[in-house]
């Protein structure tokens, strides 16, 4: 009793080089994790004609309200124009005995009227659309972070607690979730129609999106930015669960946490040689740096965030911290997007008190 997903083929065989240790034995393609979720996600019969999508996030209602307002405005104007065309066409049709056309062809008042009315309406639409948009784009501070990597043609998900998934995303109901997303190759787009949110996943940078599910169930996940041959196979499910079930699900895995994995990478790639506490003369301190401003050699100040760390790993010469020599080598081509995310998770976890030792 799942939402039909008839075309999953082609997603899973692409699993391959550069991705190690990500298979999650328990997150197979079946939705067995949702025993009591059946009521929601019903199989849609062939004879049914769906006209409106599921509404399952806090923002969906606001988007729909705007949508209905737009439909009302459009219906009004379309009806007005259609009515006038039909009315004039019949009333003033050419026929024997009717007088010639009366040359009525300017009216400043009318022109001002039908310029002014659309201006007022569009200003209103702009304001309301922008207000909801700003909410869609700004994740609440308490949002649960989850990392997502898009890759031709699959979605890879990494929970901070360690659990990994492919083409599925488990989330708790009633809690804002923030996705931090990267692409391994081309531009993808993470689209959940039932939540009315989408965001391009762009190679070379992190993009973020957030939502808060309001109903448990399984929802379509589509890639909506054309990404090559199996674009329409790059689909999956978002599975919204009761928080209690979600916690249990998270716990049901022995996967390494990203912080742990990042710590291993940190020593495997010899980052530790320059960035550890006793080697401060070579590389800047990382403990407690996350979220704080960094002064650069150029005198500029930038924020030490995900995108800054990512760039510093791949293109270290771009932004050199003040007081350090440009000696760091690039790791472009040696680390994939997931490994970079793990390193970031590790660096984020470093605090000044317990230098070198991550939070659990």
């Amino acid at each position, binding site marked *: 009793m799942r939402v039909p997903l008839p*075309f999953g083929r082609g997603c899973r065989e692409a699993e391959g080089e550069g991705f190690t240790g990500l298979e999650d034995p328990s997150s197979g393609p079946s939705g067995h994790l949702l025993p009591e979720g059946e009521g929601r996600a019903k199989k*849609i019969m*062939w004879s049914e*004609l*769906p006209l*409106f*999508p599921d509404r399952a996030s806090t923002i969906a209602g606001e*988007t729909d309200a*705007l*949508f209905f307002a737009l439909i009302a*405005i*459009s219906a009004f104007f*379309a009806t007005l*124009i259609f009515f*006038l*065309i039909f009315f*004039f*066409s019949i009333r003033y049709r*050419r026929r024997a005995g009717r007088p*010639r*056309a*009366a*040359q*009525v*062809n*300017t009216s400043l008042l*009318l*022109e001002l009227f039908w*310029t002014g009315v*659309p201006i007022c309406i*569009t200003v209103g*639409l702009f304001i309301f*659309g922008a207000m*909801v*948009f*700003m909410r*869609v*784009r*700004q994740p609440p501070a308490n949002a649960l972070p989850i990392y997502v990597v898009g890759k031709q043609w699959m979605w890879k998900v990494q929970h901070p607690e360690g659990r990994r998934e492919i083409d599925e995303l488990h989330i708790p109901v009633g809690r804002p979730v923030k996705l931090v997303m990267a692409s391994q190759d*081309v*531009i993808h*787009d993470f689209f959940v*129609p039932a939540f*009315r949110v*989408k965001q*391009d996943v*762009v*190679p*070379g940078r992190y*993009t973020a999106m957030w939502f808060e599910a309001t109903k448990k169930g399984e929802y379509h996940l*589509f890639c*909506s930015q*054309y990404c*090559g*041959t*199996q*674009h*329409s*196979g790059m689909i999956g499910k978002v599975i919204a669960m009761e928080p209690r079930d979600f916690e249990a699900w998270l716990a049901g895995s022995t996967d390494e946490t990203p912080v742990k994995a990042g710590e291993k990478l940190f020593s495997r790639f010899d980052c530790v040689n320059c960035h550890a506490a006793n080697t401060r003369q070579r590389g800047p301190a990382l403990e407690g740096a996350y979220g704080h401003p960094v002064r650069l050699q150029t005198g500029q100040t930038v924020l030490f965030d995900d995108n800054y760390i990512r760039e510093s790993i791949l*293109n270290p010469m771009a932004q050199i911290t003040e007081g350090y020599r440009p000696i760091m080598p690039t790791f472009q081509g040696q680390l994939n997007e997931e490994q970079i995310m793990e390193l970031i998770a590790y660096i984020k976890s470093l605090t000044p008190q317990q230098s070198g030792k991550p939070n659990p």
Partner: protein
Amino acid sequence: MNARESLEHQHYLNVSYGVKSWLLTRDHKRIALLYLISITLFFFLGGFFAVLIRLELLTPAGDFVQAETYNKLFTMHGLIMIFFFLIPSIPAVLGNFLIPLMIGARDLAFPRLNLLSWYIFIVGGIFTLTAVVTGGVDTGWTFYTPYSSTYSNSAVVLTALGVFVTGFSSILTGINFIVTVHKMRAPGMTWFRMPLFVWAHYATSIIFVLGTPVLAISIVLVGLERVFGIGIFDPKLGGDPLLFQHLFWFYSHPAVYIMILPAMGVISEVIPCFARKKIFGYNVVAFSSLAIAILGFLVWGHHMFVSGQSEFEGLIFSALSFMVAIPSAIKVFNWTATLYKGSISFHAPMLYALGFIGLFTVGGLTGLFLATLAVDVHVHDTYFIIAHFHYIMVGGAVMAYFAGIHFWWPKITGRMYPETWARLAALIVFVGFNLTFFPQFILGYLGMPRRYYAYPDEFQVLNVLSTAGASILGIGYLIPLVYLLWSLRYGRVAGTNPWHATGLEWRTDSPPSTENFEETPVVQEEAYAYDEVPEEVSLV
């Protein structure tokens, strides 16, 4: 019908014969016909690809063609329809034919340049067709990087070269129109006596000249990155993929107005003629064309609300996009008001024109949905977009093209098309169009992404409706092809001015002589002086 009632007189079609007399012609009317033949071929080729797309989408599973083939089909459909049909359609055929006639000139300012434009267009077309034959291209007509520059395994460079070359044909046509309108108007043809068709083409030409070079540059950069691996767009090479989107849409959004402004020009001619009235608000309609041309350059970022550009950019581009809706709305109101107290007849051009107003209204209003930021986040890259721009491009531009072809057919060929068949075809096109594209609005809000070759079962009913509509639409487009060809030989001789229309093009023979006018006309009245024209056109 004052002038000649037969086609015995010497005119641009019978003045000389033979392939050479056509391929080396400098007559704007013959060049227009060369364009007409070429873009008709491209239209039916692009339409054929559309048929295959709709057949694949008849069922949820991918079963009719391979995924790779499907991706090539929608790419080629988009490329051919946009660059080789819609952009040249009204300007290069009707604009080329009519602008000199409408302003009382003997030809365009640069006749050789005009012929060169057609040759460049054909060379670009041959490159693109070669790309189709040698395996096709699968990037989508938008060429988004880094897919197009690094990842695609198809004939991207050859296709890009085709689009690049064809762009120069647009630039040359634009320059030619601008100079012609400035320098070649007959005595008395002041700016505000010009037909709105000419105003619309003037505005379009500005976009041709300012926008097309940017497209050319971005296409060249894609090619360079693909061939030499220079890092412009691919982040792995140090580039920025969003840069491409900015460059691409800087041209390709104004390109939408390249397609719709000339269509609006056609409608502004047809409606006054069949309502027997001067157009309502001439100045407003003329300036709204310029406003669209200028504002159209400032809204490209609305294609990128979810691309990763900043929220601030999103806000600015949303506000500007709403602004560009205003001049379009003004035009619709003025056309509608033109009907008021008219004396309206319903010949085929008028049916197409009224259809245009209706469909363009729907297309324009759904544009508001896309300018509204939060709603666009949901419907972006879904079938809602597909439906919206087909309402503008097919419901708008193609309907207007058909209105124009029927309206000026007697002037171009000297013969009338069969009215009953033409009305029937207009009706079939209108019904087929709505059945094809209206269900796609619903599909889009349900969340069906565009460019999907297979889709979840619950979207099937709406897709079946759409495919059914497409087959009706296809018939609607084939009927005119048949009867227009038929009319070349068997159509009733039209005479100088079968519609009793105003405008200088109706004061010379049908078909006109190579020089257009026996003596340079002198203009003493404003455009659309229908009060001075003796009525009436018979109803059939």
